[in-house]
């Protein structure tokens, strides 16, 4: 059946209803710890207190890519396995991913002003992140522009997969082009070069933001499932009325055949 195979999503709803409070609690606790640690982290000898922006910037930057990755996997689910939850997952992730990308851009440029003396620079990494943001917006526009979720899902899936080419470009842009933005220092071959006093709060914040994403994503997926349920009920209502209505459609001279249909 089309009106979404309800069995699976129903189990999903039940499961997430139990899971969500725990996730939310874990997120809040980790966020609190992370915030406390970043508040008490020492100033950097070069960057001064502005290094505190890192604890927001880097997790958001990572998530901006991570979310697109999640959407790409979901897109494969839509196109290849036609899994009913896959396009729900992809659609629900887009606005959240766009928000994280926006935050990465914003905090990055707020950090860039004291560090580089400018808010914005056309450097390969910054630009590829901006492109990522634009593609998030394009994707959301696409979801909005099409009133039929299944049709939008397939188009969005193709676009998401094509856009995934951008991820390695973002990741490696700093290595390929010599640019302003600093190269990877946390996740790189041969261990992190970051001081522990920054690394620990950064990792805690990163985990906290990832949990935040998981929580928000599950909640948004629930909403999306409900929205589709509402839609299919409305559709059903419309077609039911249609059945009640056959035969009254034409006033004048309905034939005997026609009366039989109602």
């Amino acid at each position: 059946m089309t009106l979404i195979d309800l069995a699976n999503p129903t189990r999903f709803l039940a499961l997430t209803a139990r899971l969500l409070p725990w996730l939310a609690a874990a997120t809040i606790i980790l966020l609190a710890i992370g915030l406390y640690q970043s508040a008490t982290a020492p100033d950097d000898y070069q960057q001064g207190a502005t290094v505190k922006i890192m604890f927001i910037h880097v997790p958001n930057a990572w998530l901006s890519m991570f979310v697109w990755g999640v959407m790409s996997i979901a897109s494969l689910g839509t196109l290849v396995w036609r899994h009913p939850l896959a396009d729900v997952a992809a659609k629900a992730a887009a606005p959240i991913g766009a928000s994280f990308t926006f935050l990465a851009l914003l905090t990055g440029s707020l950090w860039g002003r004291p560090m580089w003396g400018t808010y914005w620079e056309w450097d390969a990494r910054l630009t590829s992140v901006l492109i990522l943001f634009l593609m998030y917006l394009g994707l959301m526009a696409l979801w909005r522009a099409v009133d039929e979720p299944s049709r939008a899902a397939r188009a969005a899936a193709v676009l998401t997969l094509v856009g995934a080419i951008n991820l390695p470009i973002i990741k490696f842009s700093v290595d390929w082009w010599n640019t302003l933005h600093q190269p990877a220092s946390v996740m790189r071959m041969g261990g992190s070069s970051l001081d522990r006093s920054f690394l620990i709060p950064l990792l805690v914040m990163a985990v906290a933001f990832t949990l935040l994403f998981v929580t928000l994503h599950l909640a948004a997926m629930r909403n999306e499932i409900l929205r589709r349920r509402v839609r299919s009920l409305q559709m059903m209502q419309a077609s039911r009325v249609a059945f009640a209505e056959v035969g009254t459609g034409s006033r004048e001279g309905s034939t005997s055949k026609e009366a039989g249909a109602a």
Partner: protein
Amino acid sequence: MIMSLGPYASFIVTSYAAAALVVVILIGWIVLDHRSQTQRLRELERSGVTRRSGRSATDRP
């Protein structure tokens, strides 16, 4: 404890505030969306459309 944030305090505070704001907006959107969807679902179910009722329901709304 009062933190000294140096000459760029406003940048740091703005970053954190913006992050908080965006997250709050996201949460707000999700909560409101949830409310309106459950509400509409309930209304529809009250008006007699249920997921498995199909054509058997007779009266028009």
